[in-house]
């Protein structure tokens, strides 16, 4: 498939798949006995959390590539992935809180996985603040790449701390089939895949915007404000 079709196909695919998932969530998958309708949030919460983690992994990969090749494209990919990751993890936290209120009776509980998701959100929000600073562009890209690597190294500690503390998260996809009915598992997996297309579209769109801005900055620097002023009628 030509590259130019992807920005059009991915959002269409993601949007259609997400719309199809609504049928799976509300018609195909049974309603959970104890929690009722609010359990449906899970089908959004899980994909958001997973794709947020994938976004942060993409920041890590892009940062490694930038450190070794100094490719501006990799830096812009990191920026797009970090913004998307912060957005998705923020939404995962909000949907998690709504679910926690119904499920555990509180808006927030210091469950290790929730806590560490919040910590990851803080880390990458700090990363975005660093990206917004007024620094020389190459220095900023370098500093962000180092932070992108260091930040992702915290992720294994997230999982370790989740195991040390007693988690109250349900086992979704465990070795024995997890705690979900087969229909619920299918719906959850379909939502993960659908949101994956949407995620790829978001990253592609944002990366495209950043590429365009970089191109305009280059053109502006080449012509210069004075040259642009001279060319005006």
């Amino acid at each position: 498939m030509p590259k130019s079709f992807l920005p059009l196909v991915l959002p269409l695919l993601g949007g259609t798949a997400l719309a199809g998932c609504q049928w799976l969530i509300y018609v195909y998958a049974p309603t959970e006995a104890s929690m009722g309708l609010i359990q449906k949030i899970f089908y959004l919460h899980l994909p958001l959390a997973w794709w947020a983690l994938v976004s942060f992994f993409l920041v890590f990969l892009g940062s490694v590539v930038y450190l070794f090749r100094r490719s501006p494209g990799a830096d812009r990919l990191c920026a797009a992935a970090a913004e998307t990751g912060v957005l998705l993890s923020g939404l995962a936290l909000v949907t998690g809180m709504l679910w926690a209120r119904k499920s555990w009776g509180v808006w927030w509980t210091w469950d290790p996985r929730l806590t560490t998701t919040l910590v990851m959100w803080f880390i990458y929000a700090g990363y975005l603040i660093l990206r917004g600073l007024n620094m020389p562009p190459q220095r900023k890209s370098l500093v962000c790449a180092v932070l992108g690597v260091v930040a992702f190294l915290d992720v294994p500690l997230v999982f370790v701390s989740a195991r040390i503390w007693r988690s109250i998260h349900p086992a979704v996809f465990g070795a024995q089939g997890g705690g979900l009915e087969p229909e619920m598992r299918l719906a959850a997996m379909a939502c993960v895949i659908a949101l994956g297309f949407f995620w790829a579209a978001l990253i592609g769109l944002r990366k495209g915007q950043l590429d365009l801005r970089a191109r305009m900055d280059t053109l502006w620097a080449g012509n210069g404000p004075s040259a642009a002023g001279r060319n005006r009628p």
Partner: protein
Amino acid sequence: MLRMTLAVFRKDMTLTLLRGNGLAQALLLGLLLVFVFSLSQGIGENLSPRNAAAVFWLSSAFCQVLIFNQLYALEEVNNSRLGLLLVPQPLQAVWLGKALAGFVLLLLAQCVFAPATIVFLGQSLSGHPGPAASILLLTDAGMCALGSLLGALAQSQTARESLLGVVLFPLLTPLLLAGTGVCAQALGGASGEADAWIGVAAAFDAIFLAAGLLLFSFLYTGDE
């Protein structure tokens, strides 16, 4: 590399302790934090051991930010960072030397924070001090490995204090949780899982010591 590391360590210790404010600003900030948290106690009330341990580590974390800002600001005067960059030695020696200096300075500060926490927050050392001593050294080592790496991040930045804090604190969370969990036991809190937390702190140290060695040379450059 070891000789260069020790030279940077000696230089930083001498410049920090014998000139200017030394540790005074960092110590004062940490003590103020302990004092402010003591205001939350009602008459005849004491903070729980876990809360007191958290206040101790919070003071240490703020103190660490000031220490590394100060250590990296030393070379900004007269642009002497270029001098360090020109030394024909591995650049990682600068990171290690500053981490060592930060480690000693942080331990010195904690020698003040620990009694202040016990006195102001009404605590007593009624638990086992052994695991607390181990976690203190491991947590400080991790904090200094990461602090020394990210201290270089803020070089030449006017907003370096706030920037370093915003970036560093969330990264340190697993380490601070481990330190709080084990130190709470030394203050008489519920015991259990000290070994696991020591394992987390040791893993953190290993990961970020390796990361510092690999990444420091990318960050510490002659760029303004």
